């Protein structure tokens, strides 16, 4: 890919990140909120790899690998929390969660 694609890729990464942020804000289903967080992490990965490519460096890929690991562990803990909280058949709505408020 030529050097001209660099701002487009960073723009795509920004757009994906902001779509993920909007999903976190809009959606009520906690599973979809988690998927939006995954979308944001993927957008950050794309930015890392793009910068690493255009700076002739490998650190971007290494750090994106770390981000993948962090995302995997975050999904494991988050889905465990979701199954624990919503196992009793209540509505899947993040606005109803108030156990940790007091």
């Amino acid at each position, binding site marked *: 890919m030529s050097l001209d694609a660099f701002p487009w890729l*960073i723009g795509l990464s920004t757009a994906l990140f902001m779509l993920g942020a909007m999903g976190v804000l809009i959606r*009520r*289903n906690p*599973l979809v909120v988690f998927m939006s967080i995954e*979308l944001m992490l993927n957008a950050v990965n794309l930015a890392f*790899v793009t910068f690493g490519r255009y*700076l002739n460096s490998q650190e971007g890929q290494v750090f994106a690998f770390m981000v*993948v690991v962090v995302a995997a562990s975050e999904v494991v803990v988050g889905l465990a929390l979701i199954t*624990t909280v919503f196992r009793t058949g209540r509505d899947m709505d993040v606005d109803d969660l108030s156990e940790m408020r007091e």
Partner: protein
Amino acid sequence: MNVLAGIVGVLALISAIGVVSFRSTIYCALSLVTNMVFLAVLFLLLNAQFLAAVQIIIYAGAVMVLFVFIIALLSPGSEDTPRLDLRFMVGLVAVFYVTLQIFFLVGNGITYDKSATACATQQQAQQKQCAADPLHGSQTGQASNGQSLTYYPDDVNAVGNVQVVGGQLFTTFLLPFEITSLLLFVAAIGAVYLTRHHVTGSRRT
């Protein structure tokens, strides 16, 4: 190459919009899988072969299988309506403001010193030549050396992307890599702790 990147980028954007806007949870998961596959194609175009494979295996494989399992287990029946209150409006305005700011910065502001990054090698004689085309690595004849941490794509591809990334992981980034294993260990323990059966029945979560 640029045409392919453009097509894949547009498709990734469409599938990301699908993640946010689909009403059904399983459709969201499916479009997230497509988004990850398109991003893996972009990683391939950006000379990150190892990360593309990791993206497909871990994200589109393991993580999304976990998501689909949880969707099947919990079966979220009620379709959620998007919330449209004041908090959401403020958040939406903030999101669009930040997006436009970053687009503006990408279009105008973000630059980097091509000559400084491309010529951080010991080949002083060919410095001007590699400044003319910083992305083409083989013309400098400079192997990937650990001192300057400059890896030209052709050199990396000659050695192998997996070898270079693995070498970085086990030399320069050894401590973060080991801390990563600790993080995975803690996450596994946390998942087992959170989902264990309460035998005594005295404690409800």
